[in-house]
């Protein structure tokens, strides 16, 4: 029996033993437990997204036939526009192929778009992430870029069986090299400026002196440009994202 003063320290000793054991646990076991614990709570995160879908469905059912007919007309107009765009795209693809053959250029990398719904948003000062409702079951690879109608959102950093985790462009952990259209000098982009009650932003560094931002872009210093992220107002529009994954096997760009 230990003296009382030592007995009180038993919780710390137990914690120490647990941490010591934890340090020597093989990586395989840690990876397995992490995947298991993620899988335990993944249905919870996805379930409320499905409940929202159901809610939207019943809300739509409450509309009158007149409202539905008007919406149908609008959708029909949109479909016509999109059909025309698809035709134009096909023509442009054919033109690109013709020029590639003519100039003997290597073919451009092609991507497959995989639309996915957002199950969970987690935007803090520490990280900015999304969980989407597609994963290994749709062949989503790690590193695939994620886009929406307004531009790039981020990239896939974790892929699970039915879900995938997206690191947003505004996350402090997000960093990439980019080029301005029409210029081949590399610039650096990093997310991480996420003030409360305001739109999150990223930072562009090492911008060549011959490239100037327009007046509409916010300036903090002459050599730094802050760029408003497309994920800045995700609530109304970000219910659906598209993951661009390479159509051929291999790592994503």
């Amino acid at each position, binding site marked *: 029996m230990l003296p009382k003063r030592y007995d*009180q*320290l*038993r*919780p*710390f000793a*137990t*914690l120490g033993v*647990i*941490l010591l054991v*934890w340090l020597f646990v093989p990586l395989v076991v*840690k990876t397995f*437990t*992490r*995947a*298991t*614990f*993620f899988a*335990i*709570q993944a249905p*919870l*995160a996805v379930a*409320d997204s499905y409940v929202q879908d159901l809610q939207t469905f019943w809300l739509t059912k409450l509309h009158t036939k007149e409202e539905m007919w008007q919406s149908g007309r609008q959708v029909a107009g949109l479909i016509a526009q999109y059909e025309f765009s698809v035709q134009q795209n096909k023509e442009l693809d054919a033109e690109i192929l013709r020029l590639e053959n003519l100039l003997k250029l290597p073919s451009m990398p092609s991507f497959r778009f995989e639309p996915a719904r957002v199950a*969970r*948003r*987690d*935007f*803090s*000062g*520490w*990280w900015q*992430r999304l969980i989407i409702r597609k994963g290994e079951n749709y062949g989503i690879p790690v590193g695939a870029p994620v886009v929406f109608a307004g531009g790039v959102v981020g990239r896939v*950093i974790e892929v699970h069986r039915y879900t995938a985790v997206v*690191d947003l462009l505004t996350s*402090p*952990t997000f960093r990439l090299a980019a080029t301005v259209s029409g210029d081949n000098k590399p610039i650096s982009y*990093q997310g*991480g*400026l*996420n*003030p*409360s*009650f*305001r*739109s*999150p932003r990223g*930072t562009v560094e090492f911008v060549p002196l011959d490239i100037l931002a327009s007046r509409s872009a916010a300036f903090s210093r002459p050599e730094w440009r802050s760029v408003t992220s497309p994920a800045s*107002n*995700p*609530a*109304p529009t970000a219910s659906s994202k598209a993951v661009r994954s390479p159509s051929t096997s291999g790592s994503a760009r």
Partner: protein
Amino acid sequence: MRKYDPRWAIVFGANLLLWWLIGLANNYLASSAVHLYAGGLFVVYASLRLDRKHGLIAIVLTGLLIDAVEPVPYGTSLLLLGLVHATLLYGRQRFPREGAVFGIVVALFANLFLVIALSFLLVGANPRPASAWLRIFADLLASQLLLLVITPWFLALQDRAMEMVSIHPETGRRVSL
């Protein structure tokens, strides 16, 4: 003493429920750029009301649960929650741990410690740490206000769950309703 003792499972289940609700709230608060963190509340019941063994199991499982989702080195939450748990166990005999008010105080201090510790770990990656700290303190303020409101409910929920299975949280003995 019963053959199967579900105390750790009750506390872990309650923590899972709270984790889900906080995640749901954060999902809806995403457009306001406010983030809630309630890690401090996970340790309160396990440390103040449960016995050492079951409290430790609940804390270890909760830590691993959080680590599986958050982009931190695996084991970080296990270490931090374990540290808070050990500290509370060390001093719990000296305090009126049955009361909700003391539970609130513990939850607030534990949450403060966890947020600051996590921030020191993660804020280094930020290109402008000063502005990151401003955001973290705003989030911390919102989280503490939330804890002030939900701690009595969360403690009562776990107490009620223990009552439903007719078990005393600390001794594990069967209690009559």
